[in-house]
């Protein structure tokens, strides 16, 4: 456990990616199986304990600290595990605690995994008593899952690959057939065994991702003729895989872009997977052949199952843009041009139009492509055009490579909408921003009963630099007029108020918000210290952006 907490401690304070990777490589090299495998599971988000949930931790600290003091501390620290680690009282008799020396990582995983619900609190508090602040923090991070030490699953896998001569892509490829403590994986990267075998006929294939297009640079350097142009749909990226086991059993699965199996939430989609293939596409809600707004799709997301009403009201569909395998053949090495031909033939052979083909945009030159990006309604019918959030540019000759390879795929999103809004409320943030007032509710003007009034239209918590954050934080603390628990109301009248330029991707009607509108993906694009609050935008400006349909 000590080595693991030291690792997390160093990682959490190390901003440089390469240095993080070096720390990980060293840890994996120096730590024996199965400890390092459980650490890898924790780092990749694959470790969870049924009975050790945040509610239990809250209960443990509630027995030891005043609830109000805990709430205030948590509000400041912004991280449950860290707050508890720091507030945990020192044991009365420290000598005794030292005798209970910190257990090994594997021991913790084993004991927590097998302990019954009633035994877990006792186990945890005994360990917490025996550890110092860093140890407690690491233990709590481990048991609650979310490590938040700035290490992506990919970086952890990349460090594993570096133990030997493999690439991260090799590890990704076999990853989804593996389980903690990953002994077969370590044996393979260290050259002690062959690649781990998987029997799964419908495994997840790591996805290929795009870089944002740099308009100033890329458009100059890249010939338009090298690229296939597709619409970028405003849904979620999915992978649908189906196949048959050696015993003749059909396996059909829908995966999120990170490889999470979301089949249970989408039985309507799973029913359509009557093939032996792996397809890459966009999950959308489509009724009567029309793509519905993203807010409709959201009703289907983050659910464990889907009831008949949900299936009827929000029918899901896949708009396909790539074919990764077909009838046992891996197509990923082929150029996009050839995969596309096979994809078109494949989709043509499907019986149900709920899996349809993402159409190509017949492109001439960059100017023409830019015009299509600005005005998709000139190419698509209205509902489809509203579901377009930009363009995808894919090199005709690019193979399907996992990760985010340079120069092969680009996304070119539509320009965001901008409005000037006034800061109304602020709340302390979590994670990186914790302990600063970094979650902002902002509003725009409308005519109220007593003249101009601000109505909240959204909330944003990123888009600013650390320096700007400190300035807004100071503004909030010096202009607080009301406190509601963790929320502070700041001065926001026509004379005094902080104007925020807010960028967002789109707007939907909302019954939940007083203003009747809800923004997609709002973020702070600029601080307008120079702009008088009264000159911020009016609600009418936003309403003009709403889609027509109710």
């Amino acid at each position: 456990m000590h080595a693991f907490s030291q690792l997390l401690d160093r990682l959490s304070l190390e901003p440089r990616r390469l240095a993080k990777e070096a720390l990980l490589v060293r840890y994996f090299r120096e730590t024996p199986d199965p400890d390092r495998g459980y650490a890898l599971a924790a780092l990749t988000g694959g470790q969870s304990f049924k009975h050790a949930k945040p509610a239990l931790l809250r209960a443990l600290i509630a027995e030891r600290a005043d609830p109000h003091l805990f709430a205030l501390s948590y509000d400041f620290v912004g991280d449950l595990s860290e707050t508890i680690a720091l507030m945990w009282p020192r044991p009365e008799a420290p000598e005794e605690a030292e005798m209970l020396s910190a257990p090994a990582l594997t021991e913790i995983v084993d004991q927590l995994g097998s302990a019954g619900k009633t035994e877990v609190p006792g186990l945890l508090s005994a360990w917490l008593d025996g550890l110092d602040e860093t140890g407690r923090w690491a233990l709590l991070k481990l048991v609650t899952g979310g490590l938040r030490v700035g290490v992506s699953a990919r970086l952890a896998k990349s460090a594993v690959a570096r133990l030997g001569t493999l690439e991260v892509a090799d590890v990704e490829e076999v990853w989804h057939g593996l389980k903690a403590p990953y002994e077969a994986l370590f044996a393979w990267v260290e050259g002690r065994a062959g690649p781990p075998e998987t029997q799964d006929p419908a495994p997840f294939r790591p996805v290929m991702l795009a870089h944002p297009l740099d308009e100033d640079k890329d458009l100059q350097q890249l010939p338009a003729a090298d690229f296939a142009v597709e619409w970028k749909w405003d849904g979620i990226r999915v992978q649908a895989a189906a196949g048959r086991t050696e015993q003749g059993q059909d396996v059909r699965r829908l995966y999120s872009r990170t490889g999470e199996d979301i089949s249970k939430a989408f039985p309507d989609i799973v029913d359509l997977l009557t093939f032996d293939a792996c397809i890459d596409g966009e999950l959308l809600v489509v009724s009567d052949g029309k793509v519905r707004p993203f807010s409709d799709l959201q009703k289907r997301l983050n659910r464990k199952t889907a009831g008949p009403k949900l299936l009827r009201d929000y029918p899901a569909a896949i708009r396909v843009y790539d074919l990764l395998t077909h009838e046992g053949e891996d197509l990923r090495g082929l150029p996009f041009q050839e995969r596309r031909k096979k994809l078109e033939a494949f989709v043509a052979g499907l019986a149900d139009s709920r899996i349809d083909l993402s159409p190509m945009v017949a492109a001439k030159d960059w100017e023409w492509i830019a015009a299509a990006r600005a005005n998709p309604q000139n190419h698509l019918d209205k509902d489809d055009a509203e579901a377009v959030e930009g363009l995808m540019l894919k090199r005709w000759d690019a193979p399907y490579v996992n990760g985010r390879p340079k120069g092969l795929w680009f996304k070119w999103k539509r320009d965001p909408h901008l409005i000037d809004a006034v800061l109304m409320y602020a709340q302390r943030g979590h994670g990186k921003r914790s302990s600063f007032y970094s979650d902002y509710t902002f509003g725009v003007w409308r005519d109220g009963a007593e003249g101009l009034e601000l109505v909240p239209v959204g909330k944003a918590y990123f888009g600013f630099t650390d320096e700007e954050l400190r300035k807004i934080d100071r503004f909030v603390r010096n202009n607080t007029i009301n406190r509601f628990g963790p929320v502070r109301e700041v001065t926001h009248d026509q004379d005094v108020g902080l104007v925020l330029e807010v960028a967002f991707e789109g707007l939907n009607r909302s019954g939940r918000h007083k203003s009747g509108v809800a923004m997609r993906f709002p973020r702070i694009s600029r601080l307008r210290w120079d702009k008088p609050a009264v000159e911020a935008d009016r609600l009418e400006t936003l309403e003009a952006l709403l889609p027509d349909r109710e």
Partner: protein
Amino acid sequence: MSDLLTLTPEGLYSPEAGAHIDPVRPVEKAIITHGHADHARAGHGAVLATRHTLDIMAIRYGEEFCGQAQEIGYGDRLNLGGVEVSLHPAGHVLGSAQVLLAAKGQRTVVSGDYKRQADPTCVPFELVPCDTFVTEATFGLPVFRHPPASEEIAKLLASLELFPEQTHLVGAYALGKAQRVIGELRAAGYSKVIYLHGALEKLTAYYESQGVKLGPVEPVGKRGKELAGEIVLCPPGQLGDRWARRFGDPVAAMASGWMRVRARARQRGAELPLILSDHADWDDLCRTIMETGAEQIWVTHGAEDALVHWCELNGRKARPLNMIGYDDGEDADSGQVANG
């Protein structure tokens, strides 16, 4: 309520004594607890403070920092409009004081910023029994427990041993923290030259001139990579700045009580957080409140809510003053700007 103090937009004010304490705007007469820029501002009519605090204000703002400066030693008593005023060591930085106001059998103490931990560079905190205690609350949350300074200095020295080819750049504010870091390093037996960013030179030299023994210190000047394996002190803001690049790939350390919270350390770009504070931590804030015997607690700046709640749980009447204009204590002592 204390009869001796009220709250005005300028800050705490004693109507009978006709003086403000640490006012945030220019006033006729000010009692200043210590030299940090958010407590000691230029432009008052008359200033009453310890000699060290007056000297520090003169270094920062020039000799003309106020109309009339009056020195008062620790424990000396002065009668202002029937109120007996005296200053007592606060243990925060050189010259720092608590203000005791006594009249009509009532005693009110304004703590200013204070700490109870030992500090080789200033006189230790003196406990002053009182009826009303006006306390700071910079670290007024139970997550803030400062470890002994020696443990934190040991972390710095261990890192120096582990990475002897890297400069160890320690962010520490100009008044107090920088000198304390040097003092604690000397106490731990570190005898090599310690290098200073220009903004720390004047006050460090002033500490030396007042008999605080800091050992060999030198300005960084034009040096850069040749300081590999050395300790360099700089203002916190310089840690991630262009200036720091001259050292190649330094280890960025930051000495502050805020380093207890990981997110703060990350926000500061500190790879090596040193939990070294010139403010009382939670346990010491609570302990001091009890030890003063005060029935009334006023909480000035910092995490007022939590300390007020704690006072109420422990049978003390408490009120938050929600005072505006004081910094976060250890992140920004904006006086370093005036210092150049």
